[in-house]
């Protein structure tokens, strides 16, 4: 990994950061911004640049830029640490909802055990960190790929089983993972879980920033990840594979007659979904410093699914909105405390009755909107 310094007057400047602990942010994701060193500004620039070069219409990239500015400046307006912490949780669920959206929303495969992937990511980082000293940034990749692999393995039954059966398999799988984590004491720490997981640390040449228990850095971290994930998901959505997924969701058999390799498409969906859950889990573990099986039960799987459906199945922004809503809703109901979950259930029922296709509707049609009514 060579360090390439270039002429500062060059328009594009690629500068790979090589930290003592081998930070592995790949070259083409990281573009050194000329003025600010903060990760935040760098990411925003990359994204804006990519957006402008993509086919997004100008008003849209303007709206997105506005949104990005709002997100990344929020902690400066609302300094309440509790609020920020909630937003961090919301951010993690945005990642999770986005990942599940690929499997359920894009490819149309019902997955009722997504929390298992989340757990996989968290425990993977916990284990490699505790036993092998793998630092957070590398851990992200490890968690991502391990969980992706896990997802692909789970997808193998997808070939032979029809939708509902597969859903049950994923459900069972989710439970099996949770119970296994609970019982494999020596490896996973059993019900108490694992402790003492390292928080992330940033290294820029001589400058070092250690994440601690304050939520702010995690806020920026999580939302940067959300931005990156959404960026790639948008690419996928408008790609050949993205079209194939929707075709599979509409009519699997017809899709295969059009030349779509169903197996590969499904594996990809689970792989991507798994990868995203992996990094979400890694972030969670790194922030908490501990992991335990309770955080990954069926209720969590269901919540994430509800987030995807509430926002609009297959809709990238919908998944984010759904995650935000369902993460914040219990907080708004906190005043009612014991009635919280009751109202939560009622809210879910009402939203489904009033708008079953989700708040933002299924699949964003840039072109036509007036057939967004019932499927």
């Amino acid at each position: 990994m060579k360090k390439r310094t270039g002429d500062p007057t060059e328009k594009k400047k690629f500068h790979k950061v090589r930290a003592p602990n081998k930070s592995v942010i790949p070259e083409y994701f990281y573009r050194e911004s000329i003025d600010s060193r903060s990760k935040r500004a760098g990411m925003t620039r990359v994204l804006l640049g990519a957006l402008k070069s993509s086919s997004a219409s100008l008003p849209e990239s303007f709206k997105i830029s506005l949104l990005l500015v709002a997100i990344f400046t929020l902690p400066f307006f609302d300094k309440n640490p509790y609020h920020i912490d909630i937003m961090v949780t919301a951010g993690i669920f945005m990642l999770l909802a986005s990942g599940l959206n690929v499997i359920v929303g894009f490819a149309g495969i019902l997955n009722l055990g997504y929390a298992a992937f989340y757990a996989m990511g968290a425990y993977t980082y916990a284990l490699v960190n505790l036993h092998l000293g793998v630092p957070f940034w590398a851990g992200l990749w490890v968690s991502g790929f391990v969980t992706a692999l896990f997802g692909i393995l789970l997808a193998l039954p997808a070939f032979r089983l029809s939708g509902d059966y597969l859903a049950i398999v994923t459900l069972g799988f989710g439970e099996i993972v949770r119970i296994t984590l609970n019982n494999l004491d020596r490896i996973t720490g059993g019900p108490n879980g694992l402790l003492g997981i390292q928080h992330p640390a940033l290294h820029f040449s001589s400058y070092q920033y250690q994440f601690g228990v304050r939520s702010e850095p995690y806020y920026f971290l999580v939302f940067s990840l959300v931005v990156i994930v959404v960026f790639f998901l948008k690419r996928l959505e408008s790609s050949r594979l993205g079209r194939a997924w929707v075709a599979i969701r509409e009519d699997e058999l017809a899709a295969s007659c059009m030349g779509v390799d169903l197996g590969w498409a499904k594996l990809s969906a689970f792989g991507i979904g798994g990868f995203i859950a992996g990094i979400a889990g890694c972030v969670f573990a790194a922030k908490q410093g501990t992991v335990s099986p309770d955080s990954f039960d069926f209720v969590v799987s269901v919540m994430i699914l509800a987030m995807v459906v509430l926002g609009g199945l297959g809709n990238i922004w919908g998944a984010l909105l759904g995650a935000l809503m369902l993460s914040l809703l219990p907080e708004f109901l906190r005043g009612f405390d014991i009635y919280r979950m009751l109202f939560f259930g009622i809210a879910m029922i009402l939203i489904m009755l009033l708008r079953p296709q989700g708040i933002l509707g299924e699949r964003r049609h840039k072109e036509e909107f007036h057939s967004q009514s019932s499927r």
Partner: protein
Amino acid sequence: MHSSNVFLQQIANGITIGMIYALIALGYTLVYGILQLINFAHGEIFMVGAYLGLFVYTLSQTVSGNLAATPLTISIIVLAMIGTAALGVTIERFAYRPLRNSPRLAPLITAIGISFLLQNAVMLIFGPSDKNFPQIIKSQNYSWGNVAFTNLQILIALTSILLMVVLNAFIKNSKLGKAMRALADDPKAASLVGINPDQIISIAFLIGSGLAGAGGVMFGMYYNTINFHDGYLVGLKAFTAAVLGGIGNVPGAMLGGLLIGILESLGAGYLSSEWKNVFAFFILFLILLLRPSGLLGSRVVKKV
């Protein structure tokens, strides 16, 4: 010889709980057969049945502390069944029916919402801690060879068998029962011959929920404690049973219930009780990998 005692004993115990699982599994399978909907709220209906039973019992005690056990038990079961049946039909009417033409996942989310609703409503009304459920019938032990069982177990088995026999006869012979089978088989053709899907679906929910209610009361009598969280775990096992037997298949649900009960009992007896719950899932997993249509199920074929 000692080990065969334990074995047979576990089987006997397993049959008892298996009967209860079977009753609940029937509810899942009836609804799935017609609507292709996994009714996630069904487990809570079972739980509500148990609490209703407790409620009725408590009420009866205020009237007289000296009521005859058997008629009282039967009355409680019947009343609980009526209550849960009504609940099930209401839920279908107001939460599922409007979504019949909606995206496939909408009723699923609604079901989950209802599950939350019911669990928390019960928790708020009755409190979060375990509730003591009276046995009502005075325990009497019998033994057959080296296997010990109680009159309660016999009651559970008999009641369950009675209910299942009646159900089977209903589905096979009655007009409504045939209509249910027709609707499950081919909805379009069924409507062409004048079957009203709304009515039949309501009946499916009525029966399924009623059976779950009966299961709930007997569960309470057998284990003597109930908790608002019971619906989730028992529901999941009963669902596994329905899938094991072949989801949509009525005798399959009964068979599946018994098998899950027996397997679980054997697992608890021979392995630790923690792995008891996992057992059911491993079975589920295996079935779906090896024989997704379940033991008695048939249709996994996609029509071209």
